[in-house]
């Protein structure tokens, strides 16, 4: 694999991620506006779509907050891609200088802001080795942090899941969390849910589900697909609406990731994503071909 070519592709992908939202989410926003019956929500959704156009015309950031960047890299037989972290950090620096990203990454305790959107553990890269894979996947996602304020995590048990009532305990937790979040995560939001593992694994699955999957896709697992649809539709019957000021669509998508867990527990992490779905991804083949995957 030609490292320079890959570095250039990563750079372009990072810049694409901060200057537009992914097409699947834009389409869902348009559909939400078409079926909306609440006047305030219509105005909010129209503003959101107009904002995307203004940002594009004026070559500006879609949102003032760059959120928190996480990158997923899967690799196979070509070996560990040690250059990815540096390539992402370079792109973040350039995007910050150009005004696409506000310098917003700080020390968690002292709140010191070095001004370049990097710091201890940032950029965060999640590397995954996939034996036998003859390409590399790169996805970067900038997730807003107002959305984080609504997040919740709970360790369920067989009894509290309400396994005998089609997981009514789990579903109540998701809806309760959505009500508590209200307008905080910039609705219409997406929700990532991680189920399984221990606390750490459920949390990572929740972020990966909502950040790396198309919001319009269908989960290949029939149980998860059914839960994703039911939860999304029932959250929307709550009436919270775009911006959380009332309306028909507060939730554009629910995406669930699953991993095996211990027989005593069922960890569930709920992770909100604002409508400003800034993410982009590419697949890089060994022969240098590059394909857009997100």
């Amino acid at each position, binding site marked *: 694999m030609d490292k320079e070519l890959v570095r250039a592709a990563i750079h372009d992908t990072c810049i694409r991620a901060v200057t537009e939202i992914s097409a699947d989410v834009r389409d869902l926003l348009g559909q939400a506006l078409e079926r909306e019956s609440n006047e305030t929500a219509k105005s909010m959704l129209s*503003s959101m779509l107009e*904002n995307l156009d203004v940002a594009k015309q004026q070559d*500006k950031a879609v949102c003032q907050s760059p959120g928190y960047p996480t990158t997923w890299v899967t690799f196979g037989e070509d070996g560990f891609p040690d250059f990815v972290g540096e390539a992402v950090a370079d792109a973040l620096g350039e995007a910050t200088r150009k005004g696409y990203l506000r*310098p*917003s990454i*700080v020390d968690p305790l002292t709140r010191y802001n070095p001004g370049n959107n990097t710091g201890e553990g940032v950029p965060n890269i999640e590397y995954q080795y996939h034996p036998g894979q003859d390409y590399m996947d790169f996805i970067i996602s900038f997730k807003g942090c107002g959305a984080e304020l609504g997040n919740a995590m709970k360790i369920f048990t067989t009894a509290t899941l309400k396994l005998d009532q089609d997981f009514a305990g789990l*579903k*109540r937790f998701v809806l309760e969390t959505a009500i508590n979040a209200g*307008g905080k995560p910039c609705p219409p939001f997406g929700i990532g849910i991680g189920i399984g593992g221990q606390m750490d694994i459920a949390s990572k699955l929740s972020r990966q589900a909502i950040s790396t999957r198309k919001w319009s896709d269908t989960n290949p697992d029939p149980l998860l697909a059914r839960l994703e649809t039911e939860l999304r539709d029932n959250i929307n019957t709550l009436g919270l609406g775009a*911006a959380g000021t009332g309306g028909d669509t507060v939730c554009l998508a629910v995406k669930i990731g699953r991993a095996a867990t211990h027989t005593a527990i069922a960890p569930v992490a709920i992770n909100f994503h604002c409508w400003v779905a800034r993410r982009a991804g590419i697949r890089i083949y060994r022969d240098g071909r590059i394909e857009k995957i997100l």
Partner: protein
Amino acid sequence: MSKHVLHMPLREEEVRQLKVGDVVYLTGHIFTARDMAHLKIRTLLEQGGELPKDFAGAAVFHAGPVCLKDEAGNWKLNVVGPTTSIRMEPYADVVGKMGIRAVIGKGGMGQDTLDACEKYGYVYLQAAPGCAAKLAQGIRSVYDVTWFEMGMPEALWDLEAVEFGPLVVGMDTHQNSIYKTLREAALEKLEALYPEKG
């Protein structure tokens, strides 16, 4: 329908006339302030220190703009949009004591703010979330910046707004909150869908 434009400094009586659901636009000084600026202002007030700006009748915007310096070294606003307001809930009374008449943000605030809106006479205005490029069209210039050492987002930016909006009155001075009403209705629906007991 003509635009309902309010000019800063806002008068208490005009603010008390506003009702939830009203749509307004603001012209005049808007000060951005978020976690660190609120904390700093509260400390100054507690210690009897002087505030860096006259906030009487002003609008405070829960926001951290993206600003860039031009070739002459002057700040230019690139984009600006609302941040999640609930983080500033502990400062409900501080905002009232500052003489603020309008708080702009997203996601709504809690009961302490609703009580302070009634007591001091200020309203909470909801801006369209995630619409920073569009909202920036309502900011003509950057007057100045205070406490830049706290970082670009946390600094106190004094902005010149011209028909900034649209902004929806989310909480008024009469104990009405869109967020509170929606939350109560949603909790009832939740109980019908997946009852807590059973």
